[in-house]
């Protein structure tokens, strides 16, 4: 054996020992970079991606030349620019390495359609009373709730896309919520009052004799999701994961908005066509019922079917409301009802700019002085980790539920004089 080969052998042994040390110190996460095949969206094996590529080409404009999009970025496989020259001229695109984000979008979209075994959707059942759930972040939640391990970003992307809606709500209501009161966290004093009221119903005080106890839970807790679209497609067993976090409370989840019901047969958002404008009720089990109202909130509010609102039992969630879009007239009318209910209202945004736009709309609204901020703008710990693409501007990416903000109608307490 030559000297060199001995030396080589030694370095191999040395490396192996070191790799054990690195592993022990958690400096090597054991991730074996597996290269996935990157498809051009025009040549994708899945028809839905090819049509989406065509849609981008038809709708979007090149950020440099403002002409139609014809060139597919070779790094990401997504149509982004008018021509190769324009792609080369887009210094911002290359400087900020936007193509890396777009490449992820491409890989996620193909992964979801690949038909692999989606082990992440093997959801756990009831939580054992002896094990506390940690809602500090996604990983702690999955571990303490006994989900299958989400080993790579593709597992996380698929699982968080459906779980982001129930978990965003749960992380606010939960006894050991990760959001703290000001100045340590984003919850304001008014917000703490609202959450305290809800937690009073979720975790009622322990009373020994049944006579003196007052039952506040004479009806289930209601969660209103206004302007629902994808949320209404989420099946009951995903909402049941929300139920497992609060096993002693019954919930009604109300989806309100023209896209609040997804018909599985026609594969479109439809009106429920129930008589007298009643909601379509889907009962998942004795704890969770899903109510689909396919009208705008202001119409339902005017009919008075949902009265009375109780800040101890009701809350509103506006996932990506889009106040300034075509529905602005309806939001204008709905806001009055939302503020009158005095129930907490939480909304989410796709990214910093998006939520800033929404907050600005609220602040410039004529009802803005009847509004209290109950939660300052902050990163949503349970946002979706899957990157999404804006079809009308394919160099822009976003995450669902990335930011969160809360407000409520002002409450005035009786003061002794």
């Amino acid at each position, binding site marked *: 054996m030559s000297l060199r080969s001995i030396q080589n052998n030694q370095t191999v042994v040395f490396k192996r020992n070191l790799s054990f040390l690195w592993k022990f110190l958690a400096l090597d996460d054991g991730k074996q970079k597996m290269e996935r095949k990157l498809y051009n969206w025009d040549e994708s094996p899945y028809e839905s991606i090819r049509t989406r590529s065509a849609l981008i080409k038809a709708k979007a404009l090149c950020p440099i030349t403002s002409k139609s999009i014809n060139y597919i970025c070779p790094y990401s496989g997504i149509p982004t620019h008018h021509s190769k020259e324009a792609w080369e001229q887009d210094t911002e695109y290359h400087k900020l390495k936007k193509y890396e984000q777009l490449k992820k979008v491409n890989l996620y979209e193909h992964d979801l359609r690949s038909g692999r075994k989606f*082990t992440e959707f093997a959801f756990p059942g009831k939580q054992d009373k002896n094990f506390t759930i940690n809602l500090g972040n996604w990983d702690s939640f999955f571990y303490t709730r006994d989900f299958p391990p*989400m080993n790579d970003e593709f597992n996380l992307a698929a699982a968080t896309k459906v779980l982001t809606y129930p978990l965003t709500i749960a992380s606010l209501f939960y006894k050991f919520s990760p959001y703290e009161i000001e100045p340590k966290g984003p919850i304001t004093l008014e917000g703490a009052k609202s959450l305290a009221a809800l937690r009073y119903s979720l975790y009622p005080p322990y009373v020994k004799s049944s006579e003196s106890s007052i039952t506040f839970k004479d009806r289930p807790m209601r969660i209103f999701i206004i302007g629902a679209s994808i949320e209404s497609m989420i099946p009951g067993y995903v909402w049941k994961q929300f139920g497992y976090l609060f096993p002693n409370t019954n919930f009604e989840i109300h989806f309100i908005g023209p896209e609040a019901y997804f018909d599985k047969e026609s594969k479109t958002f439809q009106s429920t066509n129930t008589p007298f404008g009643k909601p379509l009720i889907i009962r998942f089990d004795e704890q969770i019922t899903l109510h689909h109202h396919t009208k705008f909130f202001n119409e339902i509010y005017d009919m008075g079917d949902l009265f009375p609102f109780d800040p101890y039992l009701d809350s509103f969630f506006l996932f990506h409301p889009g106040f300034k879009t075509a529905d602005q007239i309806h939001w204008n009318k709905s806001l009055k009802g939302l503020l009158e209910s005095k129930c907490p209202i939480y909304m989410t945004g796709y990214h910093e700019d998006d939520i800033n736009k929404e907050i600005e709309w609220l602040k410039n609204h004529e009802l803005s002085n009847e509004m209290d901020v109950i939660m300052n703008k902050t990163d949503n710990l349970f946002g979706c980790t899957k990157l999404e693409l804006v079809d009308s501007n394919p160099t822009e990416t976003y995450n669902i539920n990335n930011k969160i903000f809360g407000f409520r109608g002002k409450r005035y307490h009786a003061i002794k004089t």
Partner: protein
Amino acid sequence: MGKLIGAPKGQTRYYDPKTHQMTPALYRVRAPFFWRNTIALFLLGSVPVGIYYYTFHKIAEDDFADIPIPPISEEELKKLKLEYEQKKQ
């Protein structure tokens, strides 16, 4: 008994079934606690280790000077020395 059929339940799933190494998911779960826990390990571990070394140091210092040696006459001493020398050879 061989392996049970179906996905194993419980936190054992967070270890690789063949190599018994931690999965990337478990590394991420552990990450926020790792450094503080390691520091705590060394801080708490330093207490018994410190006590051990202090005791060792204290014992090594002792030359047993405080133990009284019985008095011995000059003649007796010469006799003993002679005996000792003889044994040596």
